């Protein structure tokens, strides 16, 4: 090969133009998403900030825009997150431990279980809503209450918690288990004292992200009968609404002020979501291990 081919131009030059064009295209794709999101955020913040006050946080909804707040919805959302935490974590982590540590993967039923959990994570949330209506509200006779809403959210995010917990458990190197067994630990001791503590950061991160998804869910809650107008504090076995539904309700009102209140409520929802995500990222960085 002659030294000439090292010179600029020729095939190399054309390749460079293509490379630059491709990079521009990628930037443009990024830009579309970024600009849209940015415009939405700016719009919401400009409209919502003036209404982001104690009235919004502590008042119940009202026909008068000056007095209207979202307290029952915010409280119901917090209650549901609390219930979700105590239902989804033990069931999800328990399932993940069974599938990773105990299940014999050569058995067909374990493989079937595995496959179906992956599928469940992709089922549209409205389908969970129908399940909740048929099974929890009517079948078990719970009625259209907050507990039914929380339980259906549990089922909705359970596959996500299982999948992320399994990944966290699988990431614990086998040498740790072997080291435990070699010291005369039982399987229970190895899992409880070595595998789980090492997997907790991953499990926590995945679970928080799953909760963050549940917070924004609207469709299944509407199906299990979340009301749009609740002017009193929610109870476990009473009628309820949730923050996204409250936002929807305010936007669909004719008066223009309510749209601004909705914008303020969106900021509250975003703030809760971002706080949870930030906490998940902090956890991951704080406890990240290198093997």
């Amino acid at each position, binding site marked *: 090969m002659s030294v000439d081919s090292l010179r600029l131009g020729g095939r190399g030059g054309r390749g460079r133009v293509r490379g630059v064009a491709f990079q521009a295209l990628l930037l443009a794709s990024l830009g579309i998403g970024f600009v849209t999101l940015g415009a939405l955020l700016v719009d919401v913040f400009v409209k919502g900030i003036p209404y982001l006050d104690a009235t919004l946080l502590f008042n119940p909804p009202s026909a008068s825009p000056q007095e209207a707040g979202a307290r029952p919805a915010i409280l119901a959302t917090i209650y549901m997150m609390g219930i979700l935490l105590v239902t989804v974590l033990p069931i999800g982590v328990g399932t993940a431990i069974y599938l990773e540590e105990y299940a014999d993967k050569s058995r067909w039923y374990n493989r079937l279980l595995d496959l179906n959990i992956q599928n469940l994570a992709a089922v549209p949330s409205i389908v969970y809503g129908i399940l909740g209506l048929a099974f929890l509200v009517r079948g078990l006779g719970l009625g259209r209450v907050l507990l039914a809403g929380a339980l259906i959210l549990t089922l909705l995010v359970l596959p996500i918690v299982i999948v992320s917990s399994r990944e966290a458990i699988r990431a614990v190197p086998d040498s*740790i288990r072997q*080291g435990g067994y*070699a*010291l005369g630990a*039982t399987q229970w001791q190895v899992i409880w*004292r070595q595998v789980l503590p090492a997997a907790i950061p991953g499990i926590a991160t995945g679970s928080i992200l799953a909760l963050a998804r549940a917070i924004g869910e609207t469709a299944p809650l509407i199906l299990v009968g979340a009301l749009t107008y609740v002017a009193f504090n929610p109870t476990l076995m009473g009628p309820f609404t949730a923050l996204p539904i409250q936002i929807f309700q305010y936007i669909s009102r004719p008066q223009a002020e309510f749209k601004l209140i909705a914008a303020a409520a969106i900021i509250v929802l975003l703030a809760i979501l971002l706080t949870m995500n930030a906490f998940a990222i902090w956890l991951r960085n704080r406890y990240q*291990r*290198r*093997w």
Partner: protein
Amino acid sequence: MTTIAHEQLSEIAQQHRDEDVSRRATVFEVRDLAVAYSGAVALHEVQLQVYEKAVTAFIGPSGCGKSTFIRCFNRMNDLVPGAVVTGDVLYHGVDLYGDEVDPVEVRRRIGMVFQKPNPFPKSIYDNIAFGPRVLGLKDGLDDRVEEALQRAALWDEVKDRLKESALGLSGGQQQRLCIARALAVDPDVILMDEPASALDPISTTRIEDLMHELKREVTIVIVTHNMQQAARVADMTAFFSVEVSDDGKRTGILVEYDKTAKIFTTPSDQRTEDYVTGRFG
């Protein structure tokens, strides 16, 4: 024909080998032991004895089944799906594979150190204390931890940072930590599966010195692919090899088992001689 390297090897092997350890009590009596993974035979009918408070080394080329073999002594092969062990391993006369034997109990008496140091992602103290804690030995835990670290010649290096993560130690320190961890439950035997192969020469020497110290109190079985190491530390040496059948299946076999000095100077099998003189493997 002997090479220069081999002359050194036999010299090393002949130093410090005055005593005949085969007259000592037998800790393990292995009879017709074979291991198969999912039907494929990995190790073919082995017989040998491991003697008390001596170092017994298993050497041989890759794939000869020496690591598989050492994992039979504390039933670690039980954890491998599809592994089937046949034959007997008598430990002080009790068959480790008997119906009434609990593998967890076996591992409490027979400790193991792995090829790659595998400290738990916990503090140095908690690493050592793990064994005693799972066995319910909670009294005098601090003393027990100190004693184990002393015996593993690690105490002076870590005594001021017992609460720090074990993952911050160097590779050689981590491996001595793993030895200390095994010692903390007062085992009768320690199995070492290539304990120094991931370490630098200085760390390796420290581990070997440690073995000389420890064999006064415990029986040591070591797998190594380093013949110099076997010559330096072992009283008894077993040479394993691979037999390849006509259809390409590879099976590990025990070729020769004898005093280390004999294996490295006047082996009785041609295959052993080829291996230790460097003409094979």
